[in-house]
């Protein structure tokens, strides 16, 4: 696409998300959400391929519907208390409609059905925008609402998300769909602490974004669109090792950084005495760990018999900009466990 148009659309995307994060009135929030949706549509659909256009359409319909639902949910609060302030929600109908709109926007279960379809229709760089950047604005809204009114809807949706993220990813052959279900499961882990200590959820969300971006950039670099292309991938061997480490960190194995995403919610649950919900989270994350390890197995631990003419040069990559970005994101997954003491400031 034209460089100027691309720069303009990315700038308005960043402006839209910033408008949502930094405002106290419902109108700039709705405006920012609409602006980010409208500015991302040309970025996703300019190639006019059938799959991209269909994914863009589904994404636009879901986001437009949930943005209209969000502002319509702020209006009962208006009739009851005459206030447009985000931090003063007094009517329970209003809280329910706004939470439902944010759950549809984020892709938490039971409103997750659009997310794997949309991610599987887009190339990997667009996937990074949809799965990582576009979650920032609704997640900030959801967590600031949880600061005021803690309700059980969030816990129920996060339990369902973790279980759906586990079981949904089992039978997939497309790497984008696997990463979509893993993203659904991870957002379940991120939002489950919102019922107890919402400030900690920001830390978990940051880890999720960094880890996911690293994996998606590596997949973009090697064009790993399907499980069958994982074993024939022509990435540099160190990238294959870092890919495996990033995936195991996403699965939550202990010495790696992604373990923070699992251990902090478990500590918060047991400190509050809610031991009953812990097995649901553990079962969901165990099943997702299985399909992460399946990807690791197909990438690094097997060597399919191949003709010597098929061994391509292992120094090709799709984009030269993604290598330094991958190199700066991967240390989070390796050394991230040293950031665990930050959590103990919040207890």
């Amino acid at each position, binding site marked *: 696409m034209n460089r100027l148009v691309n720069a303009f659309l990315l700038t308005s995307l960043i402006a839209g998300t910033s408008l949502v994060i930094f405002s106290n009135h419902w*109108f700039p929030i709705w405006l920012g959400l609409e602006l980010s949706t*409208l500015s991302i549509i040309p970025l996703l659909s300019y190639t*006019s391929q*059938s799959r991209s*256009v269909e994914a863009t359409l589904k994404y*636009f319909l879901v986001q437009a519907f949930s943005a209209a639902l969000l502002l319509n949910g702020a209006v009962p609060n*208006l009739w009851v208390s005459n206030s447009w302030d985000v931090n003063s929600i007094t009517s329970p109908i209003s809280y329910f409609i706004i939470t439902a709109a944010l759950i549809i926007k984020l892709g938490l279960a039971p409103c997750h059905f659009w997310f794997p379809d949309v991610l599987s229709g887009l190339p990997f760089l667009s996937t990074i925008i949809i799965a990582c950047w576009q979650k920032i604005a609704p997640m900030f809204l959801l967590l600031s609402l949880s600061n005021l009114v803690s309700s059980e809807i969030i816990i129920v949706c996060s339990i369902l998300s973790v279980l759906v993220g586990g079981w949904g990813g089992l039978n997939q052959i497309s790497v984008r769909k696997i990463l979509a279900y893993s993203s659904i499961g991870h957002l379940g882990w991120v939002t489950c602490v919102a019922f107890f200590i919402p400030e900690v959820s920001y830390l978990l969300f940051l880890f999720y974004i960094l880890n996911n971006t690293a994996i998606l950039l590596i997949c973009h670099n090697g064009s790993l669109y399907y499980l069958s292309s994982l074993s024939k991938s022509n990435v540099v061997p160190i990238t294959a090792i870092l890919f495996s480490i990033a995936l195991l960190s996403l699965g939550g194995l202990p010495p790696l950084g992604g373990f923070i995403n699992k251990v902090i919610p478990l500590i918060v649950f047991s400190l509050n005495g809610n031991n009953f919900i812990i097995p649901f989270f553990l079962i969901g994350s165990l099943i997702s760990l299985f399909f992460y390890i399946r990807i690791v197995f197909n990438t690094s631990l097997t060597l399919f018999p191949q003709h010597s003419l098929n061994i391509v040069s292992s120094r090709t990559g799709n984009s030269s900009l993604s290598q330094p970005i991958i190199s700066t994101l991967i240390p989070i997954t390796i050394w991230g466990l040293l950031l665990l003491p930050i959590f103990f400031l919040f207890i």
Partner: protein
Amino acid sequence: MNILSAVLFSLFFLGIIGVVINRLHLLSLLLCLELLLVSLFLNISTWSQIHDELVYLNFSILLLTFSACEASAGLALMVSLSRSHNTDLLANINLLQT
């Protein structure tokens, strides 16, 4: 005022039902999306005239502007979709299931 806000919210729920149970055409889905935003406009205009905060009438016109932008983006996507899939029917938009 209770009857008034009940009528306005029933318009909103009609819009939601129209989006959810739509099975045939994409264009009717986009129309019900517009119904949601128009019901929002009516709601905010009525509230602002009852409670004497006339600045929100200005706000409602901005709301209409943005809903028009969104509708045009939806129509552009529908045109692009009908160029690639040759159809408007929701049952034929099924490439992404696999």
